[in-house]
Every structure is written in structure tokens, then in C-alpha cells.
């Protein structure tokens, strides 16, 4: 798994350039543990269509109160829990001035 950081997340998405401290985040893929005999319910595709490491990164915050960010990259999803990070993203999302400056 990649060494995700807040800066990495923010820089790689939508051209955002909000200054945040560099910090490694704990995260985990969403694939649940399963018996080896069954095929994963969601495909674990890693073929030619998978985006390279240089591909786009998207993230989604479904519930800011929980401090949880879903990061989508290639054919993976990584869930990161970081209330500070979420707070900064939400602050940026509600700041039209910040968005327009960076647009």
C-alpha cells in the first residue's frame, strides 16, 4: 500500500494546494477477509486498464463527522481516518475564495 499523506491527497486532486502538515496516515483497503475458495465479491482487476501510479486520484468524504476519507486510485479504494485532514478539506470545500484562487 502506498504511503499516503495529506499533501499527496490534496495535491493530486482537483489541483488543490492547501498547505497541510506532512504526515503518514493509517489506512486500509476495503476488501473484506474472505475464504480463499471464493472469488472476491468485487473484482480485484489489475490488468491493462488499471491506471498507472501516475493516474488520477479522487477522494470522497461521505460523512465529515467521522473523519473518514475514501481515496480512489487505479482500481483500488483506500479508507483513511483523519479528522484533521477531513476538517481541512471541508474548510477548503466551503471556501469559494480558496477555490477561485487556485482555479
Amino acid at each position, binding site marked *: 500500500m502506498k504511503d499516503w499523506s495529506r499533501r499527496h491527497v490534496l495535491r493530486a486532486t482537483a489541483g488543490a494546494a492547501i498547505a497541510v502538515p506532512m504526515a503518514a496516515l493509517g489506512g486500509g483497503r476495503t476488501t473484506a477477509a474472505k475464504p480463499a475458495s471464493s472469488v472476491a465479491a468485487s*473484482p480485484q482487476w489489475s490488468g491493462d486498464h488499471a491506471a498507472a501510479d501516475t493516474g488520477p486520484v479522487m477522494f470522497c468524504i461521505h460523512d465529515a463527522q467521522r473523519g473518514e476519507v475514501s481515496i480512489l*486510485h487505479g482500481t483500488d479504494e483506500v479508507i483513511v481516518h483523519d479528522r484533521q485532514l477531513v476538517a481541512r478539506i471541508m474548510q477548503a470545500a466551503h471556501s469559494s475564495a480558496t477555490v477561485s484562487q487556485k482555479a
Partner: protein
Amino acid sequence: MSSHREAPEISKDPVADNTDTYAFISPDKPDTVTIISNYIPLEDPAGGPNFFEFGDDVLYRINIDNNGDGKADVAYEFRFDTKIRNAETFLYNTGPIASLTDPNFNRPQTYTVTEVRGTRRRQLKRDIPTPPCNIGPRSTPNYAKLANAAITPLGGGISVFAGQRLDGFYVDLGSVFDLAVLRPFQNLHLIPSPATGGVNALRSFNVHTIAIQVPIGALTRNGKTPTDVFDPKAVIGVWASAYRQKGRYQDNNRSYSTGAFTQVSRLGNPLFNEVIVPMSRKDKWNRLEPSQDYQFAKYVAQPELAKLLPVLYPGVFPNLAALTADRADLLAILLTGVPKGVIPGFQNFTGPKQADMLRLNVAVPPAATPNINGILGGDLAGFPNGRRVFDNVVTIELRAVAGQTYPLIDKAFVPDGAAGLIFDVIGGGNTPPPSVSYLDVFPYLDHPVSGYNTVPLDQSA
């Protein structure tokens, strides 16, 4: 329809909308199983200049459960890739397309097949060609030859085909969705009208087919080809599913998908999500795998349609109206398979786990003289033992819901006379409507009708 536009969300996403799934012992190669999943409902053959194609951003999967837990043990994944040969024309083809590599074919689509067993993934082949859509005699002059060239062996006795086909499913849509009118019984309906013959609403429409033919031993639990119908390992569960990546981004300059794949469509038994599951839960159903179908069992046990029939046809279904017990017959047919001892010489029971899958007993050989009404017609090789391309599934399921299969679990129950007379599109008998046709060989669904040669709203059934 079987599953064409069956749920609110997927009806807006045709390339991922699974319309039909079939699983049967290949009649001409009885040591193999053929599994077919169709997508893109109601393709108007003349729908150019951007003719129909699979989604490059969709992952298609065919799933096989061989231990009855409602989870896939073997899966085949299909991913497509589309090229444009001539970037300076709006045309799909710049002249007659004589071969799959013809430079006149301006928008060729290829695909990759990956086999998944547990956590092991193996790419079987990449850059497999698909045929163009059937446009007309000038653009696709020898369509059968063109399409047949796209049937591709993958090694290990496996063959695949992906491309446009004539929709082999038939249903009187205009009738059944007009408050469950069953032509020619309109005169008995609560809102009566003169009786007329049935109409195949899918006549002259194409679909996009993914078909794979696999040796039986590659799908069963122990890798063997069973010959004993009552061997529990002789039954496999089959369903198809489609996935999109969770993230989709669009602006003026670019669009892309990224992130993990999430299921957006699935299909095992025809009409399950369409007719059994309430509208408010259809989208949820499409996102689950069969192992979680216990939560929909109550809709099978007390199907809404069985309550509606006696109301819409006053006095026609009195025994059905009086039947209040849970429908153990339907629960078996759709969610667990039929256990030994219910139908002489047959079982397709996969255990107590309730899961909507086509259940195919691979020890039942193909019928020498198939009956399109499947097991209800005395043909153990037909639906609901898997599903063949010509099986009359709407009639079979309508009759089952109307009570004709309830005596299987309660011999005291006498079905209403009308239950055995219900038919959809065709007037009984053992022949599909004249508007559909099939092939005797893989991929069994017939070549698509062409845009040039198809007359819209042709009234022939």
C-alpha cells in the same frame, strides 16, 4: 422483461444493464457448459452512426458457484477496449467491412478474458476481436462470416464470443405492463377488452452478448464430469454481474473512472429483480451478490403478482386467492433449487443457502427433443434446470406464480384451470414466436438483424 431495464438506476446505464443470463449443457458439445450474458436492452438495429458496443469502463463477469454458498468459486471477467482507426471521419465504417481487421471498420473493439479461481487470477487471452454491429448489405455484406470469425478458442477447451446478437428472449411487454394483461385473456381482465393474440415486444431488437463455453469439469467442485443426477456436486449456480469503478470524473477536457470496482447489475433467474423485488429495493438488489438474497426471500414466499392475479381477473383464480401459505415451491425454484424427491428423476438443490442463481444440474443431458416449457413441459434439461436460449421463461414463471407448481409441495392443492392455460406471446405449443431464431451451434443466439433490413414496428409476433 427478463431483466431489461428492470431497476431504476441500471435502466439509465444500458451498457452495464444485464438483460438475460443463460446456462445450459451445450447440445452439440455435451461435455461443456455454455453460459451467456446479454447487455444493452432494446438495441434498435438502425441506431447509428454510433452503433452499440460494450462499455470500456465496465467490468463484466460470469460467476459460477459450485458449493452452494451463493459466492463465486470460478469467475470469468471480460474487459473491453475500443480504438478509432481514422480520427478524421464521423463514420463507423468507411466502406464495406469484409473482415475483423478490415481498415474500413473504423471503431474496432477488442477484449481480454481473465479466469478467477478463489484468489488466483489468470489472463486467458487479450486483444480478442468483436464483430461490428450488423449495419446493412453495403457495410456488413457477409455478416455471418464476419461474426463467426470472432468465435475464439482460449485453450483448455474454452471458447468465447462477444458481440451483437438478435435478442432471443420473447415477451409481450406492452401487454404485461398494462396492468398485467395476459393476451388473449383481455376479456377476463378487470378492465376488459376484446381478446387478441400476443405480441413479442422484443421482435427485431438486438442485444450485446458475452458467451463462453467451458468444459464441465472446469466448473464443478471436484473437477469431474458427473453422470449421476443425484450427485450433489452435479449442480452449479450461475449468475452474471457488471461493475463500474466508484469514481467518475468529467469536465470539459477529460473524463475518467478510477478506484475500486463496485457491482451495478446482476442477473441469475429471469424476472427475479423485475417482478419479485419491490421497486424501492431493486437498486440495492443489483449491488449485492446472491449470498445475501435471504433478505429478499419474503418477496418470493408471498409474491405480489400472485396477489394481483385474482384481483385483476375476478373469479378466474379462486384457488390461488385462497392460497395464503408461503410459496415453498417458488422458494425452491428460485432460491435453493429443487431437492431430490420432488420431481421424479431430478434435483438441482444447492443446499439451504438462499441465493438467486440459475441452477444447472450438469448430469442431465441435453434433450433430444427439447420442450420450450422446460421442466413444466416434461423436459428436465430446460428451465429451471439452468436456462436455454429458447426457453419460454415468462410463461413458465407466470404459471408457477399462478400456482401450477404449488402441488409439488402440497399435493392437496388444486391449481386453477387458468394457471395451466397462461401463455405469453405464443399460443401454447412448443415453438418460439416466428420473430426469434437461434443457432444450433455456439453462441446459439442468432446473428443480429441489420439496420437496413429492419422495418420498425413490424407487427409480426
